[in-house]
């Protein structure tokens, strides 16, 4: 038993992903430069950052302000509305089938995130723990498939869902997640590889089944990576525009997701399309579609940053 391979230390786990709660380390200041000069440098740096931060926050502040303005003032660029119209937030529900859109979006995003987390972690455990012929080849295929441009399979995938009889439903928007997703599988495999193999061998000797290894040991230990995958997919699904555009655009507006609905509202409210230019409702809807993402980010910031950072640290 002593010759069991100790699991490879995964670079992902070792490479210390950026943590939200850890102070960012400063490179040692050059010993030659004077203290005053350094302080000036620090102030300039902070001023620059503050300026960029203001520029990055401005569009969101602008959106919040615009969502509270009456029709004629949406374009006036005031961050504090001249006239505050709280009724926008009441009337938007009558103006647009927003409730149906939100329900659709939540349902699809929850289904996608749950299914892709389960399927990807099962497949990832398969690649991390088991030894079987052609494993390297299959894993190479998986990595290569991440490079495949999504635009290339758009048309045939549409035909596949059509031939399965799922056009007109929202199944095409989440059905693919049943099969796992290459990037998430890669991400979770890294975590499973950092679990010492002895742990699994010991459980095997105690009579644990293979699925038991996954359910009782691997998955609970790698729960943080599952959270990353869940949050990533929830966001991706919530924000997705192309898939609803292709699969839902031909149904009634009640079937839309929020992003597709907003695009629809932008068009129907436009004066060139016979609307009255009620863009304040588009702004309310845009704010409402953004808000859940900001809340999720507030709670899961660490996971988002870690997940993104680890994507680049593989090399």
């Amino acid at each position, binding site marked *: 038993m002593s010759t069991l391979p100790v699991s*490879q230390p995964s670079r992902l786990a070792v490479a210390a992903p950026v943590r939200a709660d850890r102070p960012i380390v400063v490179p040692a200041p050059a010993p030659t430069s004077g203290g005053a000069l350094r302080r000036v440098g620090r102030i300039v740096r902070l001023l620059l950052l503050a300026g960029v931060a203001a520029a990055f926050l401005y569009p969101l502040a602008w959106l919040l302000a615009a969502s509270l303005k009456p029709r004629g003032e949406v374009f006036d660029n005031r961050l504090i509305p001249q006239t505050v119209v709280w009724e926008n937030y009441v009337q938007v529900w009558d103006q647009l089938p927003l409730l149906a859109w939100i329900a659709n979006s939540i349902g699809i995003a929850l289904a996608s995130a749950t299914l892709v987390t389960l399927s990807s972690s099962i497949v990832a455990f398969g690649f991390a723990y088991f030894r079987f012929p052609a494993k390297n080849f299959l894993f190479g295929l998986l990595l290569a498939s991440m490079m495949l441009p999504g635009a290339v399979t758009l048309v045939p995938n549409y035909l596949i869902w059509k031939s399965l009889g799922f056009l007109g439903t929202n199944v095409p928007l989440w059905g693919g997640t049943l099969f796992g997703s290459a990037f998430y599988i890669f991400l979770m495999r890294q975590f499973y590889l950092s679990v010492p193999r002895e742990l699994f061998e010991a459980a095997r000797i105690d009579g644990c089944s293979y699925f038991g290894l996954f359910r009782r040991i691997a998955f609970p230990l790698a729960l943080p990576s599952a959270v990353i995958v869940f949050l990533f997919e929830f966001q991706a699904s919530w924000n997705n525009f192309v898939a609803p555009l292709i699969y839902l655009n031909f149904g009634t507006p009640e079937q839309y997701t929020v992003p597709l609905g907003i695009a629809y509202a932008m068009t129907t409210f436009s004066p060139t399309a016979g609307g009255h230019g009620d863009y304040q409702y588009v702004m309310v809807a845009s704010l409402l579609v953004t808000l859940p993402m900001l809340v999720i980010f507030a709670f899961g910031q660490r996971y988002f940053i870690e997940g993104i950072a680890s994507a680049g640290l593989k090399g």
Partner: protein
Amino acid sequence: MAVTAAPTAAAGTSAEPPATRVGRPAGRRRSVAARREALAGYAFILPWVAGFLIFTVVSMSWSAVLSFTNYDLSTNTAEPVGFENYRLLAEDPKVLMSLGNTFFYALLAVPLEIAVALALASLLNGVRRGAGFFRTVFYLPKMTPTVATASIFLLLLNGNTGAINSFLSWFGIQGPQWLVDPPWVKPSIVIMSLWGVAGSMVILLAALQNVPRELYEAASVDGASKLRQFFSITVPMISSTLFFLVIVNTIAALQVFDQAYLLFFRDNNGNNPDAALFFGVYLYQAAFQQFNFGLAAAMAWLLFVIILVITGIQLKLGDRLVYYEGSRQ
């Protein structure tokens, strides 16, 4: 991605443990166990294998076959037409134009995005307090759905009333008609995508924090200026990450669709500038507005080959330019 990840893939599947040969029965038991383990392994990866077969292998082959046919969506029949679709593509001036637009956009967006991301990451990397706050602020746009971003920037970029031109006018600059004047259409989309630059920034920040501090200490003892340190230490040490971002962002830029569609192609009201007709948009129009699936499949394959070639060239160049820690003396 595949390339940068390759070393990990090789490392992950370690050598089999030397089978302890303690006579025949043990050996046979071992092989039975090994076979059972292999079967279980296949069972675990089955979902992905099935998905790969359906949504990649079948899908790509179907697309290849489709590109040589005239597909009728209402009757589900495909009539073989040989190279007709490819001939149409070669003769269509809009194909060349949309490809030109796409390349132009990628050449503008990718370097700018990486430069801005690197500048922001470098700024953040030297901050002791408040770095977390700034990073959060920079990341918020990345969380904002594209459709919300588009509805905001549609008004911010408005040539007459938009906030961006009002800001420019403070400095006496007469801002352009961003969304109308053809030369400014692509920069508009770049500005929009720069707002979401935080993804690349976070990756670069992680890379910057992995550069050993001793290198900077040694360099400053030798009297190297900050600028010199940046180009002689920082850039080479993070070159593999920069390279990764170039590849990934190029692939994304060549498929640009959402922003262009939302800003310019939501409706056919005559405000659809040719300057924003990217290849992805043109492909979408062929497939889901004209339902010419055969032609769209040919376009998809053309795009695939183009992306493949460009990525291949980048990988070749990268081999010479990128420093991988531990791989060279």
